[in-house]
C-alpha cells in the first residue's frame, strides 16, 4: 500500500496524452513543466538537502542545452552521446562553481554563483557558434535508436521517462549515505564535522549532481522547444527556479514537480489573458505564504494524503 501514490501518478501520467489528444499545446506545457521539474529537482538536492544556495542554476541548463544543440546540429552527433556530453560539461562547470563554495558560504556563495551565472550567459551571447544574441533556432527533435520523437506526444513519454529516472535517482540519493551526510551538514556543519563527514567532498558532490540535473533538463529543453536563447537563462530564470523549488517544498521529493506544474500553468494562463506581468506578483505572494505558513510547500498536500493512507507519519 505504501507505493500507491506513485502508481496513481504513473497511471494518470500515461493517460494524459490520450485525454488531451486534440490539444497538443497542453501536452507541450506539461512537457515544459516536467523539464523544469527535473531542473528544480537538482536545485532541491543542492538547497533542500545540501543547504547551499545557488543563483546561477539556469546557467547550467544553458550549458547543457547549448552543448547538445551544437553537437547535434553542427557536428551531427547522435542525440544520446550529445545528451551525455551536455550533462558531462554541465557537471564540469558544476565542479568549477563548487570549488569556491568550499571557501564561501551563504551570502558570498550567492554572489559568486550569481556572478558566474551572468558570466556564462554573457559568454554564450558573445560566441559565434551559439548564434549570439539571435539565439539558436531549429534544433532537431531528439532521436533515440532511429526513433524520432517529433510530436509533443512522443516527447511527453520520453521526458516522463527522464523525469521518473531523475526522481528515482534523487530518492535514492537522499536516502544514501551521501544524502544523509549532506543533510547532516545542512543542519549543523559543526555536528557533521564532528561525525567525521568530509564536508568539502560532499559539497562538491552536491554541486555536481545538481548541475547534472540542470544539464539534463537543458538538453531536453533544447530539443523539445527547439529554440535556445541565452537571454532566457539569466538571473530571472534562476530566481524562478528557486521559487519553483521553494513553493513546491524544499527538501521534498515531489515538491519540484508540483512547483513546476504550478509555475507553467499560472504563467501560461496569464499569458493567454495577456496579463503575464502579473505572474510575478502571484508567485511572490505565494512564495511568502509558503515561507511563512507552509515550510514544506505544496508537498504538504502529498504528505498529508500519504499520511492518511498509511495512518502513520511519512518523512520524505
Amino acid at each position, binding site marked *: 500500500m505504501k507505493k500507491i501514490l506513485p502508481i496513481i501518478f504513473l497511471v494518470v501520467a500515461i493517460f494524459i496524452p490520450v485525454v488531451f489528444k486534440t490539444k497538443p499545446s497542453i501536452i507541450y506545457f506539461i512537457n515544459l513543466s516536467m523539464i523544469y521539474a527535473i531542473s528544480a529537482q537538482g536545485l532541491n538536492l543542492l*538547497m533542500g538537502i545540501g*543547504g547551499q*544556495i545557488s543563483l546561477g542554476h539556469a546557467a547550467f541548463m544553458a550549458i547543457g542545452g547549448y552543448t547538445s544543440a551544437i553537437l547535434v546540429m553542427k557536428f551531427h552527433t547522435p542525440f544520446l552521446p550529445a545528451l551525455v556530453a551536455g550533462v558531462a560539461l554541465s557537471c564540469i562547470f558544476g565542479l568549477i562553481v563548487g570549488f*569556491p563554495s568550499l*571557501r*564561501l558560504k*551563504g*551570502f*558570498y556563495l*550567492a*554572489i*559568486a554563483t*550569481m*556572478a*558566474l551565472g*551572468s*558570466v556564462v550567459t*554573457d559568454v554564450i551571447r558573445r560566441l559565434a557558434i551559439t548564434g549570439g544574441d539571435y539565439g539558436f533556432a531549429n534544433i532537431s527533435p531528439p532521436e533515440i535508436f532511429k526513433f524520432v520523437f517529433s510530436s509533443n506526444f512522443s516527447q511527453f513519454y520520453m521526458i516522463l521517462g527522464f523525469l521518473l529516472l531523475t526522481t528515482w535517482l534523487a530518492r535514492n540519493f537522499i536516502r544514501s549515505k551521501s544524502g544523509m551526510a549532506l543533510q547532516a551538514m545542512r543542519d549543523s*556543519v*559543526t555536528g557533521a*564535522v564532528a561525525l567525521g563527514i568530509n564536508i568539502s567532498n560532499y559539497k562538491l558532490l552536491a554541486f555536481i549532481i545538481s548541475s547534472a540535473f540542470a544539464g539534463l533538463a537543458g538538453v531536453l529543453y533544447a530539443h523539445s522547444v527547439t529554440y535556445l536563447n541565452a537571454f532566457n537563462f539569466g*538571473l530571472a530564470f534562476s*530566481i524562478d527556479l*528557486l*521559487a519553483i523549488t*521553494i513553493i513546491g517544498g*524544499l527538501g521534498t521529493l515531489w515538491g519540484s514537480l508540483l512547483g513546476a506544474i504550478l509555475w507553467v500553468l499560472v504563467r501560461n494562463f496569464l499569458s493567454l489573458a495577456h496579463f503575464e*506581468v*502579473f*505572474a*510575478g*506578483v*502571484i*508567485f*511572490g*505572494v505565494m*512564495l*511568502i505564504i509558503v*515561507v*511563512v505558513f507552509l*515550510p514544506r510547500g505544496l508537498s504538504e498536500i502529498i504528505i498529508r494524503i500519504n499520511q492518511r493512507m498509511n495512518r502513520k507519519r511519512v518523512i520524505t
Partner: protein
Amino acid sequence: MFSLFFRGLATGSIYSLTAMGIVLILSTTNVMNFSQGDMGMFLAFIALILLMAKIPYPVTIIIIILMGIFLGFLLEKGLMSKVRKTSHIGMVMITLALTMIFEGIVGIFVKTPTLFPPAISGGPIIFGTIIMDRQDLLSLAISLIVVIILFLALYRTKIGIASRSLAEDEYAAKLLGIPVKNIYIFIWAIAFGLAGLAGIMVAPRLSLEPTFMLVIQLKAFIAAVLGGMNSVLGAVVGGLLLGVVENFVSFYIPQIKDSFSLILVVLVLLFLPQGLFGKRETRRA
C-alpha cells in the same frame, strides 16, 4: 579626465547608498537582501506618480523616504519576525519574493521605459575643464549628507550603537538587554529609506522600467563585497571606488565594460575575501 572621475563618483554614490542598505541588513539580521534595488524601483515609481500629481520635488523626496521607512517597518513587523526563528533561507526568499511582487506591480503600469524628471534641470556646470551634470552633483551632495547623518546615527545615538553591537555579537547583545526586535525594525526601516533615496536619485539618469534597478543592485552587491560585507564604511568606499574604476574602464577599454565588475568580484572573493574594510572572520568549523 577629471569629468570622468566626477561622473564615476556620482554613479558610485548611488552604488554606495544601495550597498549601505544591503550591508546594514546583512550585518545585523544576517539576511542577504535582494529587494534593496527593487524597493528603490518601486518607490521611484511612486515618486513618478506623486510628481505627476504636481507635488513639489523636495516634498516628494521626503514622502518617498518616509514611505521606505514605513515599508521596512511593515516588512520586519509583519513577515521577517515570523520567519526568523524557523528558517533562515526563508527570510532570503521573502526578499526575493518582494522583488517579484514589485516588478510585477510596476510592470502592469509601466510597459515601456518612462522618462523620469530630474530634480534640477539646466545645463551642466562647467568648471575649467571639468564638466559636471547638475543631477550628478545633487545626487553626490545628497548621498554625502545622508552618509554623514547615518554615521552620526550609528555612532552617536543609543539605538545606533545598540545596532552595531547587535551586528558584532547577537548573543551578547541580547544578554545586555538590548531590545533586539526594535533594532531589527530600525535597520530595515533605514535600509528601505536609503533604497527609496537611491531610486529617486538614479531614476532620472536611467529611465524608469520594472528592472532598471537590477544592475544597480548587482553593482551594490559587488561594492559591498569589495568593501567588506560587515562594514558600512566599506560599503561607502567600495561603492565610490567601483563607480570611479568602472567609469574609467568603460571609457578606455569598452570591450570588457559589462563583465568587468563580475570578474572583479570573483577576484576579490578569491584573493581578498574579507574585502577592504571587513573584519576577518574567525573560522569556526
